[in-house]
Structure formats: structure tokens, C-alpha cells
């Protein structure tokens, strides 16, 4: 067997990566977790996590990942902040090229690079990002005290964050392209009971307009063919995730029509020794608990792979 720096490299430090790292470090693998930005991933942008088992009263997204990170650190998980610019994952030795010129090699890799908030790709969205267009209610909500704002989306994240935003805003208008929300019943009921939240169904935002001070108005297109405008100073776009695959060798990896990596139930990708876990995987449900569970499965699969080399 050829020598490699590590038995396992984990890419990404959200719940999937941190759980895989916890397992690998506890099982004494020569393992490295590589994270490009801040550890935690998208959970950091979650205001409140109410359904992670064991946290009876609920917890903040930040506290949850801080605990996961500390848990992995207890077993001395080695981590590195670095940006990987290219990968060669096809051979027996996996090669990761870093931005600083350094090269890392490993016998196996778990990809937990996660997802990023989906964008609408409409006029005004990019120029007003940070000036009224936001993808993180937890981060930016308090800047909209006593103002009128909009939330785009109908899933759990959108509706839960719309409820959170009512702590600050005067009025929150949820704009959803279908006639019914996708969010879980308990979340929907809370939102419908909140008199600060208005709903516009069967409508899409087609343009974001504003001036020097940021967003002022949204242009809406309704399913019945009519158009309208909505005066808001902020728009929170919470329409789901896109996979963080920019730097990954997606020509070599099997993926679904939306670009998410396809694995089997043991988290194996089509490449031997390469596994994927968390939001970057092709699947129906993206929850913190299943990202963590998949991280554990991926690590155990990697160990099984290493033992049979």
C-alpha cells in the first residue's frame, strides 16, 4: 500500500463532518478535518433548534455546533482551516491540493461540504445583498426593528425564521409560490396564529427594487396572471439549499439532477474510498440529526474500507 498523510480526510466542519470526525478521532484513525470557513456550516444561521434529541429545552444553532466541535476536540480531532482548490479522488491515494500550494494525501475521504442558501436569481438580488437582501434571519433580523419585511419560501426554514423575525419586524409577509406551505404542521400552526405574519400564496418575486439605502420594493407576479408590488425594507430568501460542489471533481462523482452527490445507504459514492454525508448528499430530508447520523455511518464505512485495503 502506498503511504498517505492520513487514513481519512473529512471535508467540511458542519454536523456531518464533526460527527464523522468525532468517530474517527475516538477510533484513533489518522484523520484530519478540513474546513474552509467557520466550523458549523449552515446550522450557525439557525436561530433555534427545537428537535435535536437530548436538548430537551431546545438550543441555538451556534451552541449545538460548539458542543459538537468540543466533543470532537475531546478526542483530539485534528482540524485545519484551508481552502481546497482541486481534488484527485479516483486513485487509491486521494490527493487534495490546497490554495497555499500544500498537498494533502489520504486513503479515504468523506465529503461533508454541505449546502448554501438557494438564490432566486432575479434583478436586484445581488446588488442589494447585505443591503436588505438576506439569507440569514438570525444574523440580520435585528436590523429590521419595527420595519416591514418579506420572507420568500414555504418550507420549515422559511416559516420558522418568519416567526423568529416577528420579534423584530412590524410585519412579516411570507411569499410562497404554491398555494400551501411545505413546513411541518406545528410550525405552520404557529405562523398562522401569529398576527404579525401575512401570507401571499401562488406568487413569485420577480424583481427587487431600491435606492441608496437599500431595498424598498418587491415586484410580484401572481399565478392568476396579475402583478403587484410590496413595500418592504428587507427580503429574507429562504428557499432551500444548493450543494457546495464548486471545487469538487463532479465529473468523477455520480450526482442527481440538482447536483447533489449520490451515495448508497452506507454513504459510499461511486468512487472507492470516497464517502459523502450531510446536506451535500442527494436525499429528501435535510435535518441536523440526519446529517450527524450520516457522518457516523460514513466514518464507519470508511473504517470498513480501510480495514479491507
Amino acid at each position, binding site marked *: 500500500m502506498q503511504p498517505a498523510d492520513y487514513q481519512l480526510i473529512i471535508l467540511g466542519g458542519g454536523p456531518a463532518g464533526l460527527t464523522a470526525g468525532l468517530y474517527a478521532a475516538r477510533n484513533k484513525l489518522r484523520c484530519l478535518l478540513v474546513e474552509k*470557513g467557520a466550523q458549523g456550516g449552515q446550522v*450557525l444561521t439557525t436561530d433555534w433548534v427545537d428537535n435535536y434529541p437530548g436538548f430537551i429545552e431546545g438550543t441555538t*444553532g451556534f451552541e449545538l455546533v460548539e458542543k459538537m466541535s468540543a466533543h470532537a476536540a475531546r478526542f483530539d480531532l485534528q482540524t485545519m482551516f484551508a481552502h481546497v482548490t482541486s481534488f484527485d479522488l479516483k486513485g487509491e491515494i486521494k490527493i487534495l491540493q490546497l490554495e497555499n500550494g500544500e498537498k494533502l494525501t489520504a486513503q479515504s475521504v468523506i465529503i461533508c461540504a454541505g449546502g448554501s442558501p438557494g438564490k432566486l436569481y432575479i434583478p436586484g438580488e445581488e446588488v442589494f445583498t447585505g443591503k*436588505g437582501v*438576506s439569507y440569514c434571519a*438570525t444574523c440580520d433580523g*435585528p436590523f429590521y426593528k419595527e420595519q416591514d419585511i418579506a420572507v420568500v419560501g414555504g418550507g420549515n426554514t422559511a416559516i420558522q425564521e418568519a416567526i423568529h423575525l416577528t420579534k423584530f419586524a412590524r410585519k412579516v409577509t411570507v411569499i410562497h409560490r404554491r398555494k400551501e406551505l411545505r413546513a411541518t404542521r406545528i410550525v405552520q400552526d404557529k405562523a398562522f396564529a401569529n398576527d404579525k405574519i401575512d401570507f401571499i400564496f401562488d406568487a413569485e418575486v420577480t424583481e427587487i427594487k431600491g435606492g441608496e439605502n437599500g431595498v424598498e420594493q418587491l415586484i410580484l407576479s401572481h399565478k392568476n396572471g396579475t402583478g403587484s408590488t410590496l413595500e418592504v425594507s428587507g427580503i429574507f430568501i429562504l428557499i432551500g439549499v444548493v450543494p457546495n460542489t464548486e471545487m469538487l471533481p463532479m465529473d468523477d462523482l455520480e450526482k442527481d439532477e440538482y447536483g447533489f452527490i449520490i451515495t448508497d445507504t452506507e454513504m459510499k459514492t461511486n468512487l472507492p474510498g470516497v464517502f459523502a454525508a450531510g446536506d451535500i448528499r442527494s436525499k429528501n430530508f435535510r435535518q441536523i440529526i440526519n446529517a450527524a447520523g450520516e457522518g457516523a455511518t460514513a466514518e464507519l464505512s470508511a473504517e470498513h474500507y480501510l480495514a479491507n485495503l
Partner: protein
Amino acid sequence: MASDKVMHISDDEFDSKILQGDLPCLIDFWAPWCGPCKAIGPMIDELAEEYDGKIRIAKMNVDDNPATPGKYGIRAIPTLILFKDGEKVDQITGAVGKPQLTELINKVV
């Protein structure tokens, strides 16, 4: 470890310490309720140590100090603004990685 090289500044100190300071300055606008802000904290501390003497790294709590964020139109955090000779040079919004922050700092160092 929190670095003692990171300066915590208020609205009142902004003009004297940042705009009229002797060094270029990177200010991290943050708040205790912002997870991504807290997550980039260790990176800000590392940068303060690495660039000690070349650039001043400062933090401003936007809850306690509304005037400065208002003046610079900040409506999202974390936002990091780079100042040199009393002028805003550039800014980044969001929890970016260390390479992007280094790239930003290298514009004035």
C-alpha cells in the same frame, strides 16, 4: 483563545481610534446573538496576532453601538470593513474563510 490584540471599540471612540488611527484598521461588526459572527471570532483573533503592528483589528458590538453601523449602512452581520487613512477601502459581509480575510487585509498591508 481570545487575543488581547483585538481592540473593542464603541461609537464614541470610532473617529479617534479608527479614522484618525496610526494604522490601517479592520473592524468586525458583530453581535452576541449572531452565530456566524461568533464562529469567525477565532479567525479574527488569529489575524490580530499575525498582523500585530501592521494593521489594527477591532470589533464593534452593533447592539451597544448603533451609530457607526448606521452610518455605513450595515444591515447584515458579520460585516468586516477595512479602513485606511480615514477612508473605507473595502468590505466583506458573511462568515467567510481566512483566505478571503487575508486577501482583504493584504489590500492595505
